[in-house]
């Protein structure tokens, strides 16, 4: 138990240590972030001008599909799981995750799953080309042969997520140090507890829907085939029953991160802790009854349109509570603007913009106009990039000194922030306009009417990409040559993770700390 890490490669292959596993998750996610980013740049390069310049339409479709899949399942989700691995045991005073070997298993499935997925690019017929939402019959009747491997890689990624989530719940419910009552847990722990619950509830549904596809493709069943009495719309219902909670899976842990960072740099305790907990729980609950807002134009009965419209709008209430609490935490605080705080403030502002465009989309009659246009692309990128990605970036800056014992270069961090901030807005803000002007999503060529907006977006995208290369450089430089960090790291940091040395010893809290 008191040993340090094993030597060489075996440390990483066979480890059961939550910090090692967290590190692997984070690096894996970083790699996927660059791969998904590369695919996005292929898309943006093609869309720089109207007309077909760089890639074939068929390849363009493979790029949009793989970009979405890799960012969602390869970059954002594993990054949050990596953060959970590193931080949850330290935040609740546990010696490790509850089921350490299964933890390693959850991680190692991912590189294999994604290797299989990406390798389909080299298959005859190409990689999946039906969008990350893989609607039937595009993904069944008209799919390339690689769809079968896609289905199985989704299966094993799902297994990885479910095992990861089970581990997180068991850790939080069972491994808290004496005195760490539920309502004393940091919000990152709370949001992850609820996220893990969502994962266990919806990943099996995703497994179910890809299984139905598999059966339709290879065994002649008719789940999604009207000729046999099924319905392609059934696919959309099941997919979005998974899909909408999935978008909250990608944002709830972000709420937890921001709720840790803002109080530190505002030097005030978080405003409205318990309302944050209840708001998170309400969002999770509501996320199960809004899925058909992705399907307003599919031809649902009026009652369905109305129910899903109002339920969706309800989500704005708990979300508003959260934004209010973050702003109020900053109100009259003694604020400083270190890099994690910059990213967090940008999170609050830009995520709110994404929330508002979400509300616009939630109005069913208006969505008839917006649906499947670049306006939707703008919406979800505003919630995912400054939402999920910025919070992950903020978390890395905030906790990296604790992980590696060294401080990043503040000036460079701020440069990274500003380039990313500008790049992201230049990329995604114009999409609102091209979308409102009617530009459909997922097309390789378009009407010159939208040329200007697209050119601006493409420039912004390359700027944002450059910012991430800088990020990689900053992280590596910190790890190999940063200044020594103190144990508290931040002046007003608060929580068990700051009571251990920097870098955090290989094993922390082998005997539980006392929580007052």
């Amino acid at each position, binding site marked *: 138990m008191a040993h340090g890490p094993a030597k060489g490669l075996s440390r990483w*292959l066979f480890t*059961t240590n939550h910090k090692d596993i967290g590190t692997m998750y984070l690096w894996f996610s970083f790699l996927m972030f660059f791969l998904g980013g590369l695919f996005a740049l292929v898309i943006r390069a093609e869309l720089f001008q109207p007309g077909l310049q760089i890639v074939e339409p068929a390849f363009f479709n493979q790029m949009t599909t793989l970009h979405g899949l890799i960012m969602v399942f390869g970059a954002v989700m594993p990054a949050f799981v990596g953060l959970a691995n590193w931080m949850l045991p330290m935040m609740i005073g546990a010696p490790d995750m509850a089921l350490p*070997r299964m933890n390693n298993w959850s991680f190692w499935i991912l590189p294999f799953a994604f290797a*299989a997925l990406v390798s389909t690019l080299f298959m005859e017929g190409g990689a999946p080309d039906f969008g990350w939402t893989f609607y039937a019959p595009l993904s069944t009747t008209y799919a390339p042969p690689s769809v079968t491997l896609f289905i199985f890689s989704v299966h094993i990624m799902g297994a990885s997520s479910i095992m990861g989530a089970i581990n997180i719940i068991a850790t939080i419910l069972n491994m808290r140090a004496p005195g760490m009552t539920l309502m004393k847990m940091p919000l990152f722990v709370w949001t992850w507890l609820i996220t893990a619950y969502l994962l266990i509830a919806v990943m*099996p549904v995703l497994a179910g*829907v890809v299984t139905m596809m598999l059966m339709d493709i290879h065994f002649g069943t008719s789940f999604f085939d009207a*000729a046999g009495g099924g319905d392609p719309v059934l696919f959309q219902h099941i997919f979005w029953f998974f899909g909408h909670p999935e978008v909250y899976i990608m944002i709830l842990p972000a709420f937890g991160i921001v709720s840790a960072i803002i109080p530190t740099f505002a030097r005030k305790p978080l405003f409205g802790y318990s309302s944050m907990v209840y708001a998170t729980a309400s969002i999770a609950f509501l996320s199960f009854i809004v899925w058909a807002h992705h399907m307003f134009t599919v031809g649902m009965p009026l009652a369905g349109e109305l129910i899903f419209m109002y339920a969706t709008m309800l989500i704005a209430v708990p979300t508003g509570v959260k934004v209010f609490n973050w702003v109020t935490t900053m109100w009259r605080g003694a604020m400083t603007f270190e890099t994690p705080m910059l990213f967090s403030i940008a999170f609050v502002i830009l995520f709110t913009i994404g929330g508002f465009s979400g509300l616009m989309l939630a109005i069913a009659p208006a969505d008839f106009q917006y649906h499947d246009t670049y306006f939707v692309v703008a919406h979800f990128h505003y919630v995912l990039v400054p939402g999920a990605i910025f919070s992950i970036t903020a978390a890395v800056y905030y906790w990296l000194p604790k992980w590696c014992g060294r401080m990043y270069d503040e000036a460079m961090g701020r440069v990274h922030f500003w380039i990313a901030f500008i790049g992201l807005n230049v990329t995604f803000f114009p999409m609102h306009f091209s979308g409102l002007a009617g530009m459909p999503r997922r097309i390789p060529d378009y009407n010159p009417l939208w040329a200007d907006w697209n050119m601006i977006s493409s420039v912004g995208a390359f700027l944002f990409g450059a910012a991430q290369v800088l990020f990689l450089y900053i992280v590596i430089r910190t790890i190999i040559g940063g200044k020594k960090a103190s144990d508290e790291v931040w002046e007003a940091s608060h929580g068990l993770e700051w009571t251990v040395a920097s870098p955090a010893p290989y094993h922390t809290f082998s*005997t539980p700390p006392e929580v007052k």
Partner: protein
Amino acid sequence: MEQKYEPYYVPEQSKFPLFATIGLFLTVMGLGNWLMEMSNGTEGKGQQVFLLGLVILLFVMWKWFGQVIKENHAGLNSAQLKRSYVWGMGWFIFSEVMFFAAFFGALFYVRTFALPWLSEGPTAEYLWNDFEAEWPLMTTPDMAANGEAATVLGPEKNMSNPGIANWFGWLPFWNTALLLASSVTVHFAHTSLKSGKNQRQFNLWLAVTVSLGFLFLVLQAEEYIEAYEHLGLQLNSGIYGTTFFMLTGFHGAHVTLGTIMLLVQLARSVTSWAWRLPPIIALIVAFYVALFGGHFALSIKLAMVGAACGLLIFVAAMKPNGIFHHDDCFGFEASSWYWHFVDVVWLGLFIFVYILG
């Protein structure tokens, strides 16, 4: 503080996860390639890779569970660690519930929305030649459009509810009875264990449960044979065959897994391999011959499997080794929760697939 605290066992390193990953990866990718080969009619190594992966995966799981059991016997597992296992199993079962929910949801959607919409207004009139919705669906929209008659016999045959007066001649009724009884017997096994005295009784009830599981599978197979060979109802006969076989098939797969889990627990609590192997081999052989060995009458099949079950029950009751302790029997308890879960899913099937079918 120090003294009060029982340390939480964190294994130093483990090779199991990585090898399990490799096994899993080969299994699913082999299966994927095998399916692609079958659909394209090409030759390939898919099937071999699949089997290799499966063997690796099963071997690793065998070793992994064995290791955990050893650790427990070595006293490494604190009460807190055991609680982690309990949470783990509980949430795993919840994930399985959600998997089935997707399929039940599909059944509900098809019956309540998709079929009525297909048989309404211009959709039915122009696309599907006045297709009419019915359940069980015998004539699919495609067949209606081509003016073909139903190829499936029924529906008043095996699958659907023949009316309560005829339940005794209806396989699903007997399946329900078997599974409900098995939930009770596994509970009896649990109570005999909890009472702390009676290892023999524990083994007896557990063996009875396993036997009921096997008999259920025989009946289920019989039902499938009936459907395929006599009624013409197949996986690809439209949405009724789809939902029927997928729901009952996944349930059957879970019964198989649950039976194996319970059988493993039973084997663990029999004194030695010399006593474990004969009944297990007899069971596997009887089961295999009954299902694949030729066209026996159902009563013969039941008699063959039943005889092997009798041997199992007898040996189990004669040779208990008392490995499970009344307050340390997680392996058994986890399997029994799984079994209860499978039973509850069956009740859902019985109601929504059969009675309302």
